């Protein structure tokens, strides 16, 4: 990797000045930062709602003063809906690809930009417009359907479902455009010598994610349009009163939304691959296996949606088949896990904060994955269906997996993005609080679920009280952790010491240009002569 940055002082941040230059920029790095700011804002909003939900569940409603934070079940349902919709559509799905992917994919490949810079900007505007539409409903007509908009309730309820699903539709558009851009960039804009098998694993993960975004999102788009048409014109496709089938909505919905959970987790796996190899100072074990297992997960993900519908009345044969195929997802996922562990084996591990988050990911994702296998088992799922066991499972996968990786990746690439270093102790402190808080919050929910506490309820019997109290206290620890993290980031940007070109001694291409990178990424086009992880 023979590249040097010739000119200093000129970087993408000071390349052009003023707010307008940011709002009209076609530079992928600036767009990445714009996504970062918007996603962090939505994460804050969704997080506050999570805290409110937990506060409501601190005690049963019979208890005076506490336990009635959200007045009644209607308000609880609304807050639950917005928490879910915001976290899924505006934080975890766009999170890693839109922030870190946008910023680093071209840098990883030695390209000057993504293939379609203007479409890249358009996708940010689509994202913001969709988010605005969705959030608008909160101010005049709150929706309470849950983020899945299940029919027939979503057709009947007199709330702003149409506006909300249009918002989700427009955000889906943004997701498709980003995916399209990434695929073409990977195919067409690699630097000389950058073969597919020399791409960093994060790029492989983004590439697999992009394929999923392209193939799954259109189905959600039409589903949401049909739902809107159902509500406005009563077309009858999902309405049993008109001969339609509400379960068809579930089929359509999960045909997208199941692959979507891999849209959320595969980029996280990519980030973790980068972190593990860098901070073990060791070439990653099984590069090809990790690369292709991303594609494997993407492929299998399209055949497993029925596991969301074990109790929907689908045929037993379908249930058994979906149960079996779902377990197949465990194979490529385990391939990744074992390769990461094998990379750590006899590595020179340094416990810098990004690495702590990566190890946290391994721990939490393992729990999320194993409980996933439990839920994939048809008879167990029939028992656990719609209990807190499911809530705990998907929070371990999505939050414990994706958010851990996002935070780790963010600290890892922070010096490259801003040219400054953050306070390492603050970052480690934020990790400790998030990691412990996360387990305190969500592990009790496995037990609650096994005890039979249903999800989405705003009240419960006294038998569940102690574990719910523990869980709520955990949510405050997570909040503390993220506040430390935010402080570390803001302080780092404002007052952090200058970062060198390659503070972690990484081998991938983005570290071979100045920090922060110049407008065109590389002063001289890099020529790649070796794989991405030539450590030892």
């Amino acid at each position, binding site marked *: 990797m023979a590249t040097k940055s010739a000119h200093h002082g000129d970087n993408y941040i000071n390349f052009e000045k003023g707010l307008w230059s940011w709002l009209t920029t076609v530079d992928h790095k600036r767009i990445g930062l714009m996504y970062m700011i918007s996603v962090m804002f939505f994460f804050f909003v969704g997080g506050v709602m999570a805290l409110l939900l937990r506060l409501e569940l601190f005690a049963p409603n019979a208890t005076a003063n506490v336990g009635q934070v959200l007045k009644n079940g209607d308000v609880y349902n609304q807050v639950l809906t917005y928490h879910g919709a915001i976290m899924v559509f505006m934080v975890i799905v766009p999170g890693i690809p839109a922030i870190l992917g946008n910023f680093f994919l071209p840098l990883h490949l030695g390209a000057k930009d993504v293939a379609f810079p203007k479409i890249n900007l358009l996708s940010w505007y689509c994202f913001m417009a969709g988010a605005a539409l969705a959030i608008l409903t909160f101010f005049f007509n709150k929706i309470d359907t849950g983020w899945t908009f299940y029919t027939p309730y979503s057709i009947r309820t007199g709330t702003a479902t149409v506006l909300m699903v249009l918002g989700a539709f427009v955000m889906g558009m943004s997701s498709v455009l980003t995916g399209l851009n990434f695929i073409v960039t990977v195919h067409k804009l690699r630097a000389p010598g950058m073969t597919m098998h020399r791409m960093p694993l994060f790029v492989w993960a983004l590439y697999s994610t992009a394929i999923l975004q392209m193939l799954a999102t259109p189905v959600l788009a039409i589903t949401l349009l049909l739902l809107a048409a159902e509500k406005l*014109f009563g*077309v009858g*496709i999902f*309405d049993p009163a*008109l001969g339609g089938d509400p379960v*068809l909505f579930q089929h359509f919905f999960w045909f997208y939304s199941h692959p979507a959970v891999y849209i959320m987790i595969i980029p996280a796996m990519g980030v973790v691959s980068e972190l593990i190899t860098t901070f073990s100072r060791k070439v990653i074990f099984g590069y090809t296996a990790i690369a292709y297992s991303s594609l494997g997960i993407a492929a299998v993900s399209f055949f497993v949606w029925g596991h969301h519908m074990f109790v929907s009345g689908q045929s037993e044969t379908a249930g058994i088949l979906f149960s079996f195929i779902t377990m197949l997802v465990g194979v490529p996922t385990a391939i990744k896990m074992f390769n990461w562990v094998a990379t750590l084996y006899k590595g020179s591990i340094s416990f810098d904060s990004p690495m702590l988050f990566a190890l946290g990911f391994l721990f939490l994702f393992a729990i999320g994955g194993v409980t996933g296998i439990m839920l994939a088992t048809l008879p167990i799922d029939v028992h656990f269906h719609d209990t807190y066991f499911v809530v705990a499972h998907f929070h371990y996968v999505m939050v414990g997996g994706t958010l851990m990786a996002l935070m780790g990746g963010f600290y890892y690439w922070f010096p490259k993005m801003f040219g400054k270093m953050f306070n390492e102790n603050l970052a480690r402190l934020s990790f400790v609080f998030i990691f412990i808080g996360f387990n305190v919050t969500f592990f009790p929910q496995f037990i609650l679920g096994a005890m039979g506490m249903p999800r989405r309820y705003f009240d419960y019997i006294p038998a569940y009280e102690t574990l719910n109290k523990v869980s709520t206290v955990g949510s405050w620890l997570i909040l503390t952790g993220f506040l430390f993290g935010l402080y570390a980031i803001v302080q780092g940007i404002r007052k952090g010491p200058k970062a060198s070109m390659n503070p972690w001694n990484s081998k991938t291409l983005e570290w071979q240009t100045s920090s922060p990178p110049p407008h065109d990424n590389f002063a001289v086009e890099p020529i790649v002569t070796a794989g991405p992880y030539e450590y030892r």
Partner: protein
Amino acid sequence: MSTDSTTHGGVRSAHVSHHFKTAEQEYDSGKQGIWLFMVTEILMFGAILVGYAIFHNIYPEMFAEGAKTLDWRMGFVNTLVLIFSSFTMAISISYVQRNEQKKAAIALATTILCGAIFMCIKYFEYSHKFHLGLYPGRFLDVAKVGAEHANLGMYFGFYYCMTGLHGLHVLIGMGLIAWLLIRTIRGDFHSQYWIPVEGVGIFWHIVDLIWIFLFPLLYLVG
């Protein structure tokens, strides 16, 4: 994908954006991009076709009854109009490649005209149905229409959703072609650069292709 004035040094060919090395690379990328986007379009219509197939299988007589109310002649004329418009769209690319901008502009204008004819016929079809009370889903008055099947509204639900979504794409396509027309008259496209013309052309062909599926499914089946 216009040129970017911020290119650092080096020789700049007239129409290569700053992040591409050669015009071929830009052309290939653009073409791959538009095809990938078409994949998403086809998948989007694919889902509604799946819904159609499922309910057609459950209520074959009801779908047959609905199809009878449609005028296949209008649908057939529209099919011809769209196929012809695909032809004019295709030759406009060929003209641009041969630097015959005037002929290209005429071909593009004809394409828009065909789109307009298509939409006019659609308008007459829709207004005729509204006149007869053939509304989608719950708005269809089974007694007034004298429908044999209680769920006839669902057929029209599919009819309006599928043709409506397709019609929306025709309108978007017409807008894009109008944009091409302006740029062609301005002389933006020539034998060295025609990516947008070809991209919109592919979009238009796909919209045409989708109609070729919708026509038999809605008008002729049953």
